[in-house]
C-alpha cells in the first residue's frame, strides 16, 4: 500500500523562494564586504591613526551595513552609507579616546610622561606627524572626510562625489579648502 503525504505546495515554494533570496543576498553582501572592507578600514584609520581601533570600528560599521543590507543593495548607495557610518563611528571613538586620554593625563605623574625622542630626525618626523594629526583633527568634518577619501588610493574625485552624494565641483572646492586650512595650520 502506498503511503500518502499531505503537503502545501504554495507554502513549500514560498519557503524555497525565501531561502534562495537569502542566499543571493548573502552572496551579494560577501562581494560588497570584499570590495568595501578596505575602504571602511582606511576611513577609520584616517580618523583614528590606530590600526586596532580602526579595525574595530570598520567591523562595527560593516556589521551595521549587513543589518541594513536590504535597503543598501545598490553599490553606490552602499559605499556612501558605509563611508559615512564608518566616519561617524570613528569620530565617536576618537572623541571618547580623547576624553579618556585627557582624564588620564590629569592623573599622570610628571616622571611617567613620555620621554623626548633622542634622535633629532625621528623627533622632527614625529613632530611633523603629530602636527599633521592635530591639524587634521581641527578640520571641519565635511572637509576632513573629503580629504581622507581623496587620499585613499583607487578612488577618483568622481567616485568620492558619488559616495557622498554631492557634485564633483563641491568635492573639489572642499578639497581645496581642506588642504589650504591644513597648510595654514602647518606653516
Amino acid at each position, binding site marked *: 500500500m502506498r503511503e500518502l503525504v499531505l503537503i502545501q505546495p504554495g507554502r513549500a515554494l514560498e519557503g524555497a523562494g525565501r531561502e534562495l533570496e537569502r542566499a543571493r543576498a548573502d552572496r551579494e553582501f560577501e562581494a560588497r564586504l570584499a570590495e568595501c*572592507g578596505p575602504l571602511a578600514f*582606511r576611513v577609520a*584609520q584616517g580618523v583614528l591613526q590606530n590600526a586596532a581601533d580602526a579595525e574595530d570600528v570598520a567591523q562595527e560599521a560593516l556589521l551595521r551595513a549587513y543589518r541594513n543590507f536590504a535597503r543598501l543593495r545598490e553599490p553606490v548607495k552602499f559605499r556612501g552609507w558605509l563611508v559615512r557610518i564608518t566616519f561617524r563611528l570613528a569620530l565617536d571613538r576618537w572623541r571618547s579616546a580623547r576624553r579618556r586620554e585627557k582624564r588620564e593625563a590629569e592623573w599622570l605623574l610628571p616622571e611617567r610622561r613620555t620621554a623626548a625622542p633622542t634622535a633629532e630626525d625621528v623627533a622632527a618626523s614625529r613632530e611633523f606627524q603629530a602636527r599633521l594629526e592635530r591639524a*587634521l583633527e581641527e578640520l571641519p568634518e565635511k572637509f576632513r572626510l573629503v580629504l*581622507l577619501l581623496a*587620499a585613499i588610493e583607487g578612488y577618483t574625485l568622481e567616485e568620492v562625489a558619488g559616495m557622498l552624494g554631492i557634485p564633483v565641483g563641491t568635492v573639489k572646492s572642499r578639497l*581645496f579648502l581642506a588642504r589650504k586650512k*591644513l*597648510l595654514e595650520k602647518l606653516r
Partner: protein
Amino acid sequence: MSCEAYREGLSDALLRGEAARSEMLATHLRVCPSCAEFYEAQKRLLDAMDSGVRAMVNEEMPASLLPGVRARMEQEESQRAMLPWKIAAVAAAGVLALVTYPLLRHMSRAKNVSPMSIAEIHPQHNVLQSAAAPVSTKPGTSVLQARSASHQHVRQKERGKTDAPEMQVLIDPAEARGLRKLAKAAVQNPEWALAMAHNGELPVLPDESIHPHEAPDTETMPFEKVP
C-alpha cells in the same frame, strides 16, 4: 603687485596644481629670490602634508578584519534564529506566572488564615466588642477583624461584599488568640453573645458535656441549690 599678493596667489596655485602653468608667477619667481624661497618651502610642506595624509589612510587592512566581520555576522544570525524561541519561552513563562500566581496566593492565604484573621463575627451573630480592640459600634459595621502583632496591614477580605467601612486593629498575638476563642464561642452561642453585649456580664457557658434529659432518673436542679 606686492610680494604678499604674489605669495597668496602662489599658495592657491600650488594647492590647485596650477603654479607651474602660471606665466606671471613664473616671471616673478625668477626675479624675486625671497618669493622663490617661499614657493619652494610651500611646495615641500604641501608634498609632506599630502604624503602624510596618504600614509595615514592607505595602511594595509588587517587580515583579521573580514573574518571577524563574518564571525560576528554568523553569531548574529544564530542569535536571530534563536529569537522566536526566546520570545516563546518568555511568553510561556509569563503565562505560567499568570496562572500559578493566583493559585499560590490562594494556597498561601489558606495556610495563613489563622494568624491573619483572628476573629470574624457576621451580621446575623452580632455583636462583639473588645476593650483591647475597640471597633465601631455602628450597626452596619458588622465585621471585626483582629490582626496579628506582626503589624501588617492586610486588605480586608470582605471589602466589596459589604458597605461597611474597613476596620483594622493591631493587637498582641496572645490577645488575638483569646479573641478568636471568644468569637468562636459567640458564633456557637449567639444568645450568650447577645447577653454579654447588653448586660456586660458574663453568663455561665452551657456545659455541653452535661445532657440532663438523656438520663430519665437524674434530677436536675439549679446550681445554687445543689447541696
